[in-house]
């Protein structure tokens, strides 16, 4: 862990499973003896809105929200949301994993807004951050037979960066507490695919 | 001045001003224009800059002379009745059509002839209901055509059924329509420079126009229901000064003056009571209930009528010379009222582009 506190933001669109990803990371951190504070918004934002979880891992009690510009890590499930979050919370010190599959907002569907060019967007974040992993997480999930497993691929990729000194087995234990049988097997496969893609 | 979008203009110039004739031609061209109870409305602004809906509407600007050229290939020869080849008395020899039809049953006989001969795949007709407004239908059989025979006196958006039929893949259709409906069809047929999709009128191969001096608002059906005490109405006729409703229990008569308040204002601004752009136009004789007046207008009309006569479906005879002035006076008076209204600068006539060749008042009065 780079400093006393690791500020992680999981960002995406309602329905992508980012809340579950943040809960897995946070649970593994609590199980490993850290103080964790998670801030999230759900409810109305499920309905196609932007969804963001702040996960703060440290040795002390912290508030549920990360101050602007102080995200150490952004786990972006969707390019536009990654950009939006990076603009507000990112800095030259921020590391980013971004799923490159877009989810078009209503304004784009209505032909009123233009979705940003993804390679350009990626370069933009790369130039202004510490590091960017642009990951075809949804494709990766499909390739291991779990089309809805994007969140597991992304979680695995986060673990693969080793930014938190928590072992793979701790996360796998969290997954084993969450799922059983075939669903556990599929989720583990997606998780491991993400892990390998980054490490 | 910035040009408004076509769709918005249709709404503002035609629908919002009650100029709409309820022809139904714009209904179903797109998912935004719908009809219910003979009212036509925009559900949602489609945001399109262009719009066939505006261009084909019988109540958007129409140059009569251009349309004469498009339909007949020549300038107007009769300024009261429009161009025609023959004016006749006619009646159906097709057993069945004469019984249920109005007067001579010519309309049903011709439509059935077109469908049965295979020249048209179906006929777009307006089927009367036992109560309330009639229903536009695509009739694919003789039975379905006969089921729809008889005059209707409200403004059914019949052409919505044409759009629906063409979308379902039908080709070569006969359309039975009011003069405004025929006008819309002809406008659509002569459109240029637009996408070929959804131009339903191009699938019409025969138009039977109906004489029409006015139509009634659907509120009149409440009056009918009240007068017949809720009985099913089998037939409606307006022979002279009474509206006659035929029910299973007999006839109910309503003085015509009682229904005048239901006449749609747009009908008072109509310049075309005899379906001037139809292949054939049919009306009553106002004289002999066994016969219809039949105006054969186009070459196509002439050819179909001749075949129908040859095949024993139709009987024709000369239009009585003594009756012709009466018809001309009635039509001329209606046209004169429109021209007078235009001259006074009244609203509602913006759609009419006339030149002296289109109409020169004959000066006859009632």
């Amino acid at each position, binding site marked *: 862990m780079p400093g006393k506190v690791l500020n992680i933001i999981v960002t995406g669109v309602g329905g992508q499973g980012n809340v579950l990803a943040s*809960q897995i990371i946070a649970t593994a951190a609590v199980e490993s003896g850290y103080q964790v504070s998670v801030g999230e918004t759900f409810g109305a934002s499920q*309905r196609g809105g932007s969804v963001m979880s702040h996960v703060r891992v440290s040795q002390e*009690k912290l508030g549920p929200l990360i101050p602007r*510009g*102080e995200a150490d890590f952004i786990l972006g499930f969707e390019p536009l949301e990654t950009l939006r979050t990076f603009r507000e919370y990112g800095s030259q010190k921020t590391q980013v994993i971004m799923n490159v599959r877009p989810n078009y907002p*209503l304004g784009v569907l209505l032909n009123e807004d233009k979705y940003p060019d993804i390679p350009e967007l990626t370069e933009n974040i790369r130039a202004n951050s510490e590091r960017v992993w642009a990951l075809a997480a949804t494709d990766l999930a499909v390739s291991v037979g779990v089309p809805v497993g994007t969140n597991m691929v992304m979680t695995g990729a986060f673990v693969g960066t080793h930014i938190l000194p928590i072992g793979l087995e701790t996360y796998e234990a969290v997954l084993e507490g969450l799922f059983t049988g075939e669903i556990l097997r599929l989720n583990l496969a997606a998780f491991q695919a993400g892990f390998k893609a980054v490490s | 001045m910035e040009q408004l979008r076509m769709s918005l203009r249709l709404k503002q110039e035609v629908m919002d001003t009650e100029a709409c004739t309820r022809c139904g031609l714009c209904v179903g061209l797109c998912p935004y224009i719908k009809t219910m109870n003979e009212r036509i409305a925009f559900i949602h602004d489609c945001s399109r800059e262009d719009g066939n809906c505006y261009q084909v509407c019988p109540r958007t600007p129409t140059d009569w002379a251009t349309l004469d050229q498009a339909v007949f290939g020549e300038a107007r020869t009769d300024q009261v009745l429009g161009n025609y080849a023959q004016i006749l008395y006619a009646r159906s020899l097709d057993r069945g059509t004469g019984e249920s039809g109005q007067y001579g049953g010519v309309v049903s006989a011709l439509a059935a002839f077109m469908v049965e001969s295979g020249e048209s795949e179906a006929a777009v007709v307006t089927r009367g209901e036992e109560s309330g407004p009639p229903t536009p239908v695509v009739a694919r059989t003789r039975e379905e055509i006969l089921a729809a025979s008889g005059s209707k006196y409200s403004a059914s958006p019949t052409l919505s059924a044409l759009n629906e039929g063409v979308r379902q893949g039908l080709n070569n259709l006969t359309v039975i329509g009011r003069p405004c409906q025929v006008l819309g069809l002809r406008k659509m047929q002569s459109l240029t420079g637009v996408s070929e999709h959804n131009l339903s009128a191009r699938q019409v191969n025969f138009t039977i126009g109906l004489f029409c001096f006015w139509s009634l608002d659907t509120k009149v059906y409440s009056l009918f229901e009240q007068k017949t005490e809720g009985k099913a109405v089998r037939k409606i006729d307006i022979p002279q000064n009474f509206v006659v409703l035929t029910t299973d229990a007999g006839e109910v008569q309503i003085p015509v003056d009682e229904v005048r308040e239901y006449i749609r204002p747009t009908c008072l601004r109509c310049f075309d009571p005899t379906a001037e752009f139809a292949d054939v136009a049919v009306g009553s004789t106002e004289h002999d209930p066994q016969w219809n007046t039949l105006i054969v207008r186009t070459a196509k009309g002439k050819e179909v009528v001749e075949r129908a006569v040859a095949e024993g479906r139709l009987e024709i005879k000369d239009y009585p010379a003594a009756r012709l002035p009466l018809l001309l006076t009635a039509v001329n008076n209606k046209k004169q009222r429109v021209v007078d209204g235009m001259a006074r600068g009244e609203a509602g006539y913006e759609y009419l582009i006339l030149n002296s060749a289109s109409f020169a008042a004959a000066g006859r009065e009632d």
Partner: protein
Amino acid sequence: MSFLSLLVNEPGRQVLMSGNEAITRGAIEAGLSYAASYPGSPTAEIVTNLGRLAKTHELYAEWSVNEKVAIEEAAGASFTGLRSLCVVKHNGLNVALDSLVSISIGGVKAGMVLVVGDDPAAHSSTNEEDSRLISKVAHLPILEPSTPEEAKQMTLAAYTLSERVQLPVTLRCVTRLSHGSGNVTLSLIQPANKKPVFKKEDRFVTHVAFHQAQEIKLAKIREAADTLPFNTYTGPEDAKTIIIASGPSSLYALEAVQALGLAGEVGVLKLGITWPLPEKFLLKHMKHAEKVIFIEEIEPFNEENVMALAAQHMTDIYPIQFFGQHSGHVAGPKGPGLGEMDPDIVKRSIARVMDTGVAEAEAAVATTNAVSAAGVPSAGIPEREMAFCAGCPHRASFWAMKSALALDGRNGVVLGDIGCYSLALRRTGWSLPQTMHAMGSGAGIANGLGKLDMFGFNQPVIAVVGDSTFFHATIPALINARYTSSNFMLVVLDNETTAMTGHQPHPGLNKNAMGEDVQGIAMEDVVRGLNIPVSIHDPYDVKGTVETVYKLLQSEGAKVLILRRVCALLAAKAETRPRVYVNQDQCIGDDCGCNRFCSTTFSCPATIWDPKKGKAVIDEVVCNRCQVCVSLCPQGAIKVEGGDQVAR
């Protein structure tokens, strides 16, 4: 995983829990017997979890018809000696207010805790309301947790306090606490009295004579407040500036003081109980302070109560100055008391108050943002608007109502209500509703509009409600409509669940909060019982729905139309439907008169545009396979796999 941690019985173990889970756990550790609630964000998950724990933990949990009934039930259980819980959101407390005020006068017997979820910034609410003002009106003590850990401890303490003074105790939560998560230390699940007995007591009959006793109880709590472990002070004992904060805002304040380098001179006083105030504790620290800054959400509740206390003791604490919402120093971008607090707003607010280093602090905040924004274009980031889900029956219902009203042509009025369908106020519902207030108020307003014909009012009126809202607050309005011959149509958008708050059951369904089979109440029977005509239609049949709505609009009097179709999210989980796709040979793209009706007007998120082919395409990851677009595509280009449209 967090649900499982609720079951762990290992005292001392730390687990991750949300604020809602921590309260659930706290109630169970306290030996809770009876819980009643109406679902509302941000506190809906508490009774969802209690329902799942009912069997194993010998307790009863229910989704009540509304909050008024819920609070009365919880009081009833308490009267018999059972510890009870009532969970509401701020609007729900308003619904329950009349009963709450009366219950508080005579008081309760066994511990009764009232959890209220306030929603600063209105993340999932119509309004931001500070319910502490309501609890104060009802003479209830208020505890305000700042972390999930504290939420659990306070739940336990609230039961003790409630039993000590025999008043219900409010646990006031904000969204960031309820939905946030953190470490929670588990304690033993205590054995509890689960043998209810009702014993007559005079105080259960509300009478003004008990007002005095009620005030004495509050005074007792005021004494006890100073000894509660939840009020803390962090900072120099002689700090000239203190910050008084409560809830998660107190954590933002602690961080801000650190970040601004003010830890050596500014103290942070966190209030765990915000009514009645721990007066001695506050006065002790106000004595050494010359400046007091208030950080709280939403209204200046602590600010005003503490200033009143200070005024009373001014000679002891003078000189002193107060900074907060009233002075304008503590404010987010929209102004004082608007929106929620966050670390940046708090940092800026403190910097504004401190004489020195204002510019630096402002600059520091500005710089962090500037660094993060550097080089990343701000333009061209489209907003992500809220929209109906793919396949949502409400989209079809609103399109049908919009169509019928346009065809009717009398400038009809649609009155909205509270639920998923309030998203119709946005673009995917074509902004059809013209009013929205409280639950059931659409039908109430319709009652009024429906009787204005004597003044020449002739616009038809439609009130829309959801199925859960129908039972919650609409039936009295219907009774009134029938009794007073009001002329309007009530459309019940029945998606067979309480969708917005997470698919809870309601009285119309055959399941209860504990997952048991029960006999639901058919809303059509309720309406028929009032002798009001009722029709039922499937909104997925758009054409038929348009006709039905149109026809009903032409009829006089009050009438009800139930548009019944299960929530698309539940349906997608429950059954596998055939795939829906665009036959791109049939789609004629921009040559169609429809102007991309499916993706731009009907705007289902599953119908998207394929720019390469210039035709529509279905995003099969998003599509819930409702098939409504199949019936609406003017070219009939949208198909169902395995043949044409399947019968519904």
